């Protein structure tokens, strides 16, 4: 089974995240890059499927040179190879354009199943897995907290606010996973050494056969008009509990008409 995992490098939540003042795009240089946390669950699920069913795991990444760090980590966890679309002309592409590029790259990689994290911790749009499913014309098996494959039949538990839906489809399919589906493994020393020798195909927009008129900020479907820091919250009152902390909060709530 050929399994493709889409991996995004995102700014570390712990470091300051900001948009650039000139073009309103994410300032990727300002923050440390890490693998999008939810993608680690996707990588783990891909590796587990490979261990159960055989095949190969290919990592797909779109991003600057720096994203190589995240690719190496995914390879160190156990993925077999990677495709990295790296091209300055891609900067500023929105989710819709990204889904077009991923569709082309998935087709190039020749996948039976594509696995993604349910959203990224930077943009948090949560739209990409559904868009990719639409573009590929493959069943949308998203928000999975459990995945089972038998032959070409796939069953997932799709997480809902009140529990889960059981969903059935046939391969090829697009799967997105939520946190808690598994426990992502840590790369061990052997994995880290092996990762250095695994093939990473680095492609430009032209190499990947993408239509340059469909990607990049100038061709985006959405435009950020402006941005500013949200106003800081006014400093509140903090008291120590002297046996009447609960009463004091009740007083505060009453003063704000909550009770």
């Amino acid at each position, binding site marked *: 089974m050929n399994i493709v995992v889409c991996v995004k490098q995102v700014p570390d939540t712990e470091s300051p995240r900001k948009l650039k003042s000139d073009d309103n795009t994410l300032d990727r240089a300002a923050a440390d890059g890490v693998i999008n946390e939810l993608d680690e669950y996707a990588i783990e699920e891909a590796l587990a499927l490979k261990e159960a069913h055989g095949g190969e795991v290919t990592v797909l990444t779109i991003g600057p040179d720096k994203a190589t760090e995240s690719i190496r980590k995914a390879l160190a966890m156990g993925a077999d190879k990677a495709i990295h679309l790296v091209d300055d002309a891609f900067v500023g592409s929105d989710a819709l354009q990204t889904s077009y590029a991923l569709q082309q790259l998935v087709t190039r990689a020749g996948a039976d199943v594509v696995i993604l994290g349910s959203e990224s911790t930077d943009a948090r749009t949560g739209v990409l897995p559904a868009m990719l499913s*639409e573009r590929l014309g493959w069943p949308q098996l998203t928000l999975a907290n459990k995945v089972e494959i038998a032959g070409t039949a796939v069953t997932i538990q799709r997480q809902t606010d009140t529990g889960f839906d059981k969903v059935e489809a046939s391969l090829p399919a697009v799967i997105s996973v939520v946190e808690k589906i598994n426990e992502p493994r840590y790369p061990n020393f052997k994995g880290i050494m092996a990762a250095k020798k695994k093939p990473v195909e680095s492609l430009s927009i032209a190499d990947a056969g993408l239509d340059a008129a469909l990607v990049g900020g100038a061709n985006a479907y959405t435009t950020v008009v402006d941005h500013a820091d949200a106003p800081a919250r006014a400093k509140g009152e903090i008291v120590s509990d002297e046996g009447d902390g609960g009463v004091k909060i009740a007083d505060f709530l009453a003063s704000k008409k909550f*009770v």
Partner: protein
Amino acid sequence: MAEILVLVDHADGEVKKVTFELLTLARSLGEASAVWIGPGYEAAADKIAEYGPAKVYVADDAELTGYVVAPKVETLQQLAANGAAAILVPATAEGKEIAGRLAVRLDSGVLTDVVGVTGELVAEHSIFGGAVIAHAKVAKGTPIIAVRPNAIALAAAPGSPAVEQVSVALSDAAKAAKITDRVVQEKGERPDLTEASVVVSGGRGVGGAENFKIIEGLADTLGAAVGASRAATDAGWYPHQFQVGQTGKTVSPQLYIAAGISGAIQHRAGMQTSKTIIAINKDPEAPIFELVDYGVVGDLFQVVPQLTEEITKRK
């Protein structure tokens, strides 16, 4: 006036509050048309009419809710062909998936996690966990806008909408992911986490699954939803779907009470746009206190039960 399509969010016959927020917003942008997909419209009709749509499209074939997302996308696509000026959906996990697929179908831009929209269809986003406000607009096609629950102030405008039955011939592709069972694990009387006007959350300081009763007790006196930090859901003390934070739900209630939560960035990203924030924590250095309107440094096992009792007394 230009037609603004609003996807009605409903489950088990109950219309979600975000629907009324979307209808309120749609009326400020043009002529609101509600889109009901699935069975059960009759029971909800009066409630929807209160928020003033000029029209309601009813697509009630049971087949439309038997597959993941795609049938709803095809229904909206069919209705958008009449020339809608914008399509509003709730920024829930499924709402955003619908928005995404529809954007591909209509070759149109999509904006998610929107907290406000002006008449010129410029959308306001609260990003990076509320640290930055950005304005954006759709440059191509019919704007598809996913609006966050609790972001728009409700305004009723009772009316008598025209009801139009819609039938949709689903493509084979739309039937590729079949829902074979719906399993309900957590169903209670409490409001939905993302829609609640008051949320009470517990974290590491709660110390165990059993102790969440204290959090639930306070929540119930306030008619609040219960949330949990990642530390609490990771430890298995509270179900994952109640996690508030960067990898969980984003909430923006009128009142947020955090008990035993230190306020790591992971958590703050999911709650710092709440209107009023109260925290109870043993550690005076806990970062959550940077956000609060009122904070008590103390033992939640003393403070929370006392607060619950006090509120009950004053009711």
